């Protein structure tokens, strides 16, 4: 497939780098301030070197990438809340041109799912969003494959940063602030970690799951979200007295979305360690399935994007 990649952060960059290996061609690559478009195929390595040197992939107009001759647009700009712009506008343009869209950006799928699906219904293009939930883990595809109507609920650990902090606090008996600082040094937490530790990121992922289960209707405002900020180390010690530990668990169903710190058995399925994610899917007749793996990272998330591209090319 011919791909246009909008967004050249860790995910967009990895998609562009891996596209060739997966048999695809990148015909446009844009970041927020520049772009390269080449119908004969963008020289990805050169464009990314240019970005490393100058801060942008090229001197083209990013808007031109949306008009390029591509089969699928990969939308990998940073997640924004509310109107989900500028990502939503990129998606809208691609669908109006009857092109496929593959999202890594959670904003449009979480905040404007109904608008997104209305655009897709009027387009010859399809919308896919595997990469928006749990990185490399095929959560969306598994639910679609079983039929969302056969899945009453999905829960799991969907934020690696929060999980890393809770894992370290329990294992080392360290306080929240200490472990957060360590996570920032390691690059596991961002300088402003609020999106992760306040539960917003996990909330968006659960909203996307609830939208998938119920055919829409949810946005972040409908989610009950609590984070892990300020959880005392003593809470983890008390939990351990009973063979339990604390994890930031997201729960999505047709009834609603809840994210918050929860008690789980210390050696149980949901108590994944470090930055690992787990998605637990309840099925009506097939019982419970657990999918765990890497929930973030450039190549991991790009793997999910490229799996969507592969589904589109079938």
């Amino acid at each position, binding site marked *: 497939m011919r791909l246009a990649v909008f967004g050249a952060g860790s995910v967009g960059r990895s998609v562009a780098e891996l596209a060739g290996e997966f048999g695809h061609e990148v015909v446009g690559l844009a970041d927020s301030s520049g772009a390269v478009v080449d119908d004969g195929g963008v020289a990805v390595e050169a464009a990314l070197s240019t970005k490393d040197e100058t801060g942008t992939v090229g001197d083209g107009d990013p808007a031109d990438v949306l008009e390029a001759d591509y089969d699928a647009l990969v939308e990998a700009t940073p997640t924004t809340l509310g109107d989900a712009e500028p990502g939503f506008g990129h998606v809208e343009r691609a669908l109006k041109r009857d092109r496929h869209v593959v999202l890594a950006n959670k904003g449009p799928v979480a905040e404007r799912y109904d608008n997104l699906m209305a655009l897709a219904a009027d387009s010859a293009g399809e919308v896919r969003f595997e990469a928006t939930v749990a990185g490399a883990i095929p959560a969306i595809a598994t639910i679609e494959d079983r039929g969302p109507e056969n899945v009453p609920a999905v*829960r799991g650990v969907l934020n690696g940063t929060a999980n890393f902090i809770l894992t370290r606090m329990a294992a080392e008996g360290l306080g929240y602030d200490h472990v957060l600082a360590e996570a920032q040094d390691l690059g596991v937490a961002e300088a402003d970690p609020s999106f992760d530790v306040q539960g917003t990121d996990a909330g968006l992922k659960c909203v996307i799951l609830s939208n998938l289960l119920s055919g829409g209707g949810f946005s972040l405002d409908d989610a009950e979200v609590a984070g892990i900020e300020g959880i005392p180390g003593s809470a983890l010690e008390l939990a351990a007295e009973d063979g339990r530990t604390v994890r930031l668990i997201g729960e999505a169903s047709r009834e609603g979305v809840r994210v918050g710190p929860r008690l789980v058995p210390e050696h149980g399925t949901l108590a994944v360690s470090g930055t690992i994610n787990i998605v637990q899917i309840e099925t009506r007749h097939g019982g419970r399935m657990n999918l765990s793996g890497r929930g973030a990272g450039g190549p991991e998330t790009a793997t999910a994007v490229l799996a969507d591209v592969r589904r589109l090319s079938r």
Partner: protein
Amino acid sequence: MSDEAEADYRAYTVRLELEDRPGELLAALEPIADSGGNLLSIFHERGNITPRGHIPVEVDLECPPDRFPVIVDALKDAGVNVVQAGAERYGEEVVLLLVGDLVESDLSDTLSRIETCSTATVVDFSFAAGGRGGDDASARLRVAAERGTVQDAIGAVRSVAAEKDLVVIEPAGTEVAA
């Protein structure tokens, strides 16, 4: 989350006194299972022989309420000495954490309010004072409730906590201890 039909099962305790003879215990348990009861636990107090030389046995079982008299009758018909029957016990437990200014918000009042707001009983409790680097205090509560009422008990904890500005860390959806 399970879609198994949840019949209205309740937990009961039956106290029996058995003669100290091989096979007595099995003979006492058979009528329970045969009459539709689920055995939950058996506490066989061999070291605690009654003045009449019998061994007290405490049997926890669960069954629909209308089956319970049938089970007691079956035991009596089988010649088992039933000392006490029908004291309803708690069927489910849940462990919760409370985080916040527990002392200032009157911990003992918090615990007694949880008990008055529901059929639940706080059966175990531990507490860690805050302070380290300004950390909040936390408490671990093990709450026992009659089978089928654990969600009500969690609801009671949530509402008391909300009023007192405490954070409740509850079990993940399916981890309610059976």
